[in-house]
């Protein structure tokens, strides 16, 4: 039918629009020329070899530090908030959730500038810690969303059943709550890590002298000769991100199946 063919064409165009730019990255990262232009000049891995650069590695380590700290703190905060929201009927819970999720709707550049001003006013130095702070604002809503969904599919009686069967609060957490929450926790850790690792704007404003990887890449774009190396780096980051996102989504959806009977 005509309309279905049209739809198919549209889907194809859409996918091309989404992925062709992304595929340009690996393509030119393997191209044996310093210029990003067709026709291709032959295969090389020398841009990848050029990644062994100490400033780059320092930036990578910075990004890993920030990403891991952000992921851990954000997931911990998300965990406690999600538990409170789903377990108790709190007054103002919805309002609180709204306030927590607000940074999702504030442009990152506004967030970056306002944090910069705030830190300046308070006289605090810019550092990786301030980047973590900024990333937490962005990441806690993600953690919260993933973890609330997880807690909501969780029969409250399970923890009571554990207590009933003789386990105290700590053992109940260890034997019931944690195993059931684990997929949600891992998904939250991965999502927030990736978000922080890829984040540029807030990091650009708050990192000071300690560049994170995206900030470092940005700084390298000034030197045309370094561009293919940046492409190589981008390709690696892309590959790792894709693997992590797929893993996180898989975990998130592999849910506790709802019981067949009862509520």
């Amino acid at each position, binding site marked *: 039918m005509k309309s279905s063919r049209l739809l198919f064409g549209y889907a194809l165009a859409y996918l091309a629009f989404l992925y062709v730019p992304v595929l340009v990255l690996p393509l030119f990262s393997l191209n044996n020329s310093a210029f990003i232009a067709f026709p291709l000049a032959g295969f090389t891995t020398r841009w990848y070899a050029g990644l062994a650069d100490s400033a780059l590695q320092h930036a990578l380590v910075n990004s890993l530090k920030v990403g891991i700290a952000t992921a851990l703190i954000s997931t911990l905060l998300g965990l406690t908030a999600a538990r409170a929201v789903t377990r108790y009927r709190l007054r103002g819970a919805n309002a609180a959730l709204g306030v927590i999720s607000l940074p999702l709707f504030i442009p990152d550049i506004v967030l970056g500038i306002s944090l910069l001003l705030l830190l300046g006013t308070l006289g605090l130095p810019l550092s990786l810690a301030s980047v973590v702070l900024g990333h937490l604002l962005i990441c806690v809503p993600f953690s919260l969303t993933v973890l609330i969904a997880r807690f909501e599919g969780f029969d409250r009686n399970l923890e*009571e059943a554990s207590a009933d069967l003789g386990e105290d609060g700590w053992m109940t957490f260890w034997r019931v709550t944690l195993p059931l929450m684990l997929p949600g926790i891992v998904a939250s850790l991965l999502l927030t890590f990736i978000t922080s690792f890829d984040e540029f704007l807030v990091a650009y404003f708050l990192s000071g002298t300690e560049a994170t990887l995206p900030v470092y890449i940005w700084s390298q774009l000034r030197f045309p000769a370094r561009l293919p190396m940046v492409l190589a780096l981008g390709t690696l980051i892309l590959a790792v991100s894709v693997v992590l996102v797929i893993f996180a989504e898989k975990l998130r959806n592999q849910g506790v199946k709802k*019981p067949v009977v*009862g509520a």
Partner: protein
Amino acid sequence: MSFLSVSKVSKAFGGNTVVDAVDLDVERGTFFALLGPSGCGKTTLLRMIAGFETPDSGTISIDGEVMNAVPPHQRPTNMVFQSYAIFPHLNVFDNIAYGLRQLRLPREELRRRVETMLATVRLEGLGGRAADQLSGGQRQRVALARALVREPKVLLLDEPLGALDKRLREAMQIELRTIQRKVGITFLLVTHDQEEALSLSDRVAVMSGGRILQVASPRELYQRPNCREVASFIGEMNFFHASVKDIGEKGVTVNAGLLGNITLPRANAANGIKTGDTILLAIRPEQVRVASEGVTGEIITQTFLGERSHFHVKIAGRTAPVAVSGHPPPGSAVTLAFPPENLIGLPSSD
């Protein structure tokens, strides 16, 4: 003091009294049912016994020990939850073994205990089955086995058969009774199904609006309900207004309007009835006789239910038709007799 004793226990949620000064005494080794309509506070009472809710006042004791300050994980009770609450990340074996961890049994002993329990609830060979691959009936058995394997002093069951279909429910009722006899543990079962309560238990407490109305054996409850609410909650009952004329050696003489003057045995009248009181006379449909002398009426409906067939008779001067068990005689007119020994006198609630 009895084995499980609930004394003057009350509980309110946000100003709503849900359990109201409840007294309950359950003897060791009995199958005790708590029967009441939905929302009357049964689950709340059970959760207080298990330790998940704290009573606002009153005491709960088990085997002579006051339980009020004992946390759930240290109480000698185990519960079969209304939702079963099977651990979804554990298989059947590990679900049943969950509560045995603290005993630190040798591996062989643990296995033996769990397998014995699997056999008791007739789930032999299903130990390795994942929790989400169980049918409703199987989940119910796992929940039961998981609680029983700890050999609690009191087993609490919150509408354990409510989620099962009718046939499975009836089969499980028989099994539950058999298992209780076999293990000899005190069972406290909550239900809103009167047939379930009557057929399963040694004693039944009828609850309504947070209060206990009557505690008695199933037979006594059926034959001698102590108030209108219990009488109409359990089976069908015909009621007549009457006034008490005389209370004598032989019995209680009442004037029951259409039925005339009747003298019923003393034991058939509830305590506290005095001469001059307006009371209710109650009689079960199967106690009403079709006779040659008595009150005449007209058959208005009849329902064929095999063994449990019944018909309704409209009597002039009375709004509610009289329900009678059995098959109606031919013709539309019928004469009914109400044997005095089967009439009971209840305080009139209004």
